[in-house]
């Protein structure tokens, strides 16, 4: 294990630069930005999951006081395009040639036209002097619907005779993938044991504390559109708007200011609708989603069912894996195979399973479209596999830790090709890490053996305490690229612009730390700006645990090159070799010759164009370097989680007592920020495991439409979270970084489910679905007790 040198900025627990404004309430979130004269929009949403809109009359809305305009899907038809499935473009020809992947395209309009496909789908929009009046306007709209058959889940969608939701798809399968390696059938045929289990991972939702917001302003004189938006992908928004509104890219400026969390991406009608309204009305328009709307359809996620089979031997070693899974994509599969491929690629996790066959289908239903959200397909697969491992442990009479020890990829096999391509088409290789050591470190730090020793004593006292383990790998730093401009001003301060768009990850600080090390000035001299497409030509954005890797590398390399240029210019002025010069607080000085220096102002002047220019041959004027880092492929972070829970068998309530993680995020730019990311992810995962569920009735009416029904974990439900580290430097970027934003959220459902099963070990319950609510658990306990009868086998857990 390598350690970070202490005289670098990278690796220090630097206090965050962004805090200064945020703790004062001086952050500038999208709704805080007021474009003078802006009108307010409110969206009419479908009350049915599946319906024909038989009539829609917005004229009455126009008679409501304060209402200025109202639009329907008919008004937009032919004027606003449909969403481009950018993710579909991310399937490279290379991937296509290696793996059986099929994605069918099905365009989504910003507003429904003619029929609606999920409760909450936009049907019309009202624009008024304020949101209150706009909502008054919504109420006045006359809308009639003819309800059609709702399709509440993939099974219904795949049934013979089920209505086909989209003609373009032909059936209700919007995407599929399949990959295999080795002779799977033979392995299963000859295996001493086969485990078959169905695992169901319910739908939940991202629930950033800030709801979505869009504000747009059209400059008629210049034909320029400015959009402020709570999106972590401003450049993609710009691309989409360009295509959907028929505007050249250069005429669109997208600004993503401070954002109150995101936890995923997504394509939303309002992103295009509000700008269209601003252009059409020739008036700025703003819209902020309320929490009802967010719960209806923003960043729904998960919702998978896995039929998993594991062939294993008497010692609990896995010989082969077969998985067939369905993703409930909602009404439109907007993300191609992003999530499902993640599920497939990360399913085997840290375990040495080389004979496998995995196939997955994205099925459309009459629910809100899902999006990649923190974990993005990994939690679902990890839940299935880690629960299955514990089932195997029980069958073999082994401790779950031992089953893992027998299956983990040994350190000496790293880097390890995993027998399939990653989603970017490159060969999937776990590049670095030591999973067995990670497990041991986690178990030891947790006091696993001590807890096992005390369990019998607790049970005798009527306390049901259990411990569960889960681990994951995460391909991080996904491409295609990220960029940065690093510029030195005449006072010797650095300005960094990046295409990453942080929304809590502290990139204004960590990127400053990278720049500080590579350029040679302290972070307080460095300002990091993001989220403005006019400042950087190309950008991708912050999601998929990619920005520390990609933006970090871009900033680092750009900073190095800027440093080289600054030293070259200084060398020209000092008639010295750049190798003999050092950067200091005031400027650049000779290392060996005293009082031989130039100030930043002098260097800046020398680098300016014009008669005073004193540039070395071959160098262009200016002190800014623009650089785009293109990662070769993803780099694999990993983690092991251990959780202990106490179960109240009379009520089914589960309390998480302790939670511990050991994570390998490669070089940690700022350990405090890394730990914060992991702790936040774990809390999110605890919510997913025990509290959160997007629930529908049989007509696909949303049942969880407020925070009284959709339950986010609070400080009372989340225990202290202990975070340990390994640091296996990545060699897929010059700085050894791996991503850490999502990992925390991947393992908790599995770890907690395993802990609950362990707590009730004498009852031999099986938890195979998430979330695990108290009533569900009580039912499992009751069933187990009924089965028990007179035969009780004391579980011997060695």
């Amino acid at each position, binding site marked *: 294990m390598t350690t970070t040198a202490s005289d670098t900025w990278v690796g220090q627990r630097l206090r965050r630069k962004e*805090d200064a404004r945020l703790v*004062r309430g001086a952050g500038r979130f999208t*709704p805080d930005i007021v474009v003078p004269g802006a009108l307010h929009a409110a969206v009419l949403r479908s009350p049915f999951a599946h319906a024909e809109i038989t009539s829609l009359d917005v004229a009455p809305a126009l008679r409501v006081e304060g209402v200025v305009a109202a639009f329907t899907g008919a008004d937009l038809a032919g004027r606003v395009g449909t969403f481009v499935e950018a993710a579909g473009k991310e399937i490279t020809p290379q991937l296509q040639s290696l793996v059986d992947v099929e994605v069918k395209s099905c365009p989504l309009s910003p507003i429904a036209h003619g029929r609606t496909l999920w409760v909450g789908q936009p049907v019309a929009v009202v624009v008024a002097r304020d949101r209150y009046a706009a909502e008054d306007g919504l109420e006045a709209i006359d809308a009639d619907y003819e309800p059609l058959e709702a399709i509440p889940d993939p099974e219904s969608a795949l049934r013979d005779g089920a209505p086909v939701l989209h003609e373009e798809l032909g059936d209700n399968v919007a995407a599929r993938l399949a990959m295999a390696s080795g002779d799977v059938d033979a392995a299963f045929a000859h295996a001493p044991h086969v485990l078959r289990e169905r695992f169901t991972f319910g739908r939940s939702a991202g629930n950033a504390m800030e709801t979505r917001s869009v504000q747009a302003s059209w400059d008629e004189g210049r034909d320029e559109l400015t959009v402020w938006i709570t999106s972590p992908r401003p450049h993609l928004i710009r691309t989409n708007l360009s295509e959907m509104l028929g505007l050249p890219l250069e005429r669109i400026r997208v600004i993503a200011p401070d954002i*109150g969390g995101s936890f995923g991406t997504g394509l939303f009608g309002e992103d295009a609708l509000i700008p269209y309204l601003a252009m059409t009305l020739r008036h700025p328009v703003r819209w902020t989603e309320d929490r009802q709307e967010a719960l209806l359809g923003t960043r729904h996620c998960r919702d998978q069912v896995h039929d998993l089979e594991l062939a294993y031997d008497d010692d609990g070693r896995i010989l082969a894996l077969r998985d067939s899974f369905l993703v409930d994509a909602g009404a439109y599969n907007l993300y191609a195979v992003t999530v499902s491929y993640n599920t497939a690629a990360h399913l085997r996790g840290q375990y040495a399973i080389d004979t496998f066959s995995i196939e997955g289908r994205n099925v459309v239903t009459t629910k809100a479209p899902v999006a990649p959200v923190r974990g993005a397909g990994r939690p679902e697969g990890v839940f299935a596999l880690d629960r299955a491992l514990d089932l195997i442990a029980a069958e073999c009479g082994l401790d779950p830790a031992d089953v893992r020890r027998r299956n983990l990829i040994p350190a000496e096999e790293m880097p390890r090709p995993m027998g399939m391509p990653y989603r970017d088409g490159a060969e999937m290789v776990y590049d670095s890490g030591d999973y067995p050591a990670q497990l041991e470190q986690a178990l030891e730090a947790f006091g696993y053996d001590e807890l096992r020793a005390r369990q019998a004593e607790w049970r005798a006292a009527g306390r049901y305490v259990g411990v569960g383990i889960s681990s994951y790998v995460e391909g991080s730093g996904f491409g295609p690229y990220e960029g940065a401009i690093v510029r030195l001003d005449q006072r010797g301060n650095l300005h960094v612009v990046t295409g990453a768009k942080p929304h809590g990850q502290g990139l204004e600080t960590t990127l400053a730390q990278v720049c500080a090390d590579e350029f040679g000035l302290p972070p307080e001299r460095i300002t990091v700006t993001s989220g403005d497409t006019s400042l950087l030509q190309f950008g991708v954005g912050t999601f998929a645990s990619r920005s520390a890797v990609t933006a970090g590398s871009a900033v680092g390399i750009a900073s190095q090159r800027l440093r080289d240029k600054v030293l070259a210019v200084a060398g020209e002025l000092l008639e010295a070799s750049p190798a003999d010069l050092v950067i200091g607080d005031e400027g650049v000085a000779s290392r060996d010759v005293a009082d031989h220096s130039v100030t930043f102002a002098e260097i800046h002047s020398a680098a300016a164009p014009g008669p005073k220019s004193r540039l070395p041959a071959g160098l262009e004027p200016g002190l800014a370097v623009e650089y785009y880092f293109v990662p070769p492929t993803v780099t694999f972070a990993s983690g092991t989680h251990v959780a202990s829970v106490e179960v109240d068998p009379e009520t089914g309530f589960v309390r998480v007592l302790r939670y511990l993680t050991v994570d390998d995020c490669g070089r940690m730019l700022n350990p405090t920020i890394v730990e914060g990311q992991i*702790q936040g992810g774990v809390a999110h995962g605890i919510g997913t495991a025990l509290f959160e569920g997007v629930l529908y009735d049989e007509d696909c009416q949303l049942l969880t439409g407020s925070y009284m029904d959709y339950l986010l974990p609070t400080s009372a439900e989340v225990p202290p979270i202990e975070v340990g580290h390994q640091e296996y430097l990545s060699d897929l970027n010059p700085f050894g970084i791996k991503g850490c934003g999502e990992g925390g959220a991947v393992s908790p459902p599995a770890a907690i489910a395993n802990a609950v099963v362990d707590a009730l070990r004498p009852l031999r319950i099986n938890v195979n679905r998430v979330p695990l609510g108290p009533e569900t658990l009580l039912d499992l306990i009751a069933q187990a007790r009924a089965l028990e009868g007179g035969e009780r086998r004391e579980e011997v857990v060695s």
Partner: protein
Amino acid sequence: MIATAPREVVLRVNGVEHRGFAEPRVTLVDFLRDELGLTGTHVGCEHGVCGACTILLDGRTVRSCLMLAVQAEGHELRTVEGLAPAGEPLHPIQEAFSEKHGLQCGFCTPGFLMSVEELLRDDPDPSEETIRSRLSGNICRCTGYQNIVEAVRYAAELTREAAA
């Protein structure tokens, strides 16, 4: 005059009198943000659960999304902007949140800060259990609460030191 029409509303916020116009139905949080430009208080759910809109009214926390602006006339309001005047050093609670990394995106933070101010006034040396229980009315999606708890304990320490 139509009874539902906007009327003048005069509020004292952070010791300063503000005048604005609002219909009776306008919530206090919307008035503070949209009419008075005090955008530090945030809107998270508009039904009183998430705590992002928490401010102090006569020294006690309230959900500003569950009050009408007109109801706040005649009371003393305190928002995050009042913790430390512009240009002045941070309030100990703000200092503590930054020092202990008790915020990430910062959206829920103003609500937490006001809740913590009341908590520390009620209990200058709160235990972890008390902190977690008292702050369970403020939801954070970023931090996992760990560092918020640390920040509150540090804020308590800073406050006690300042008082000593």
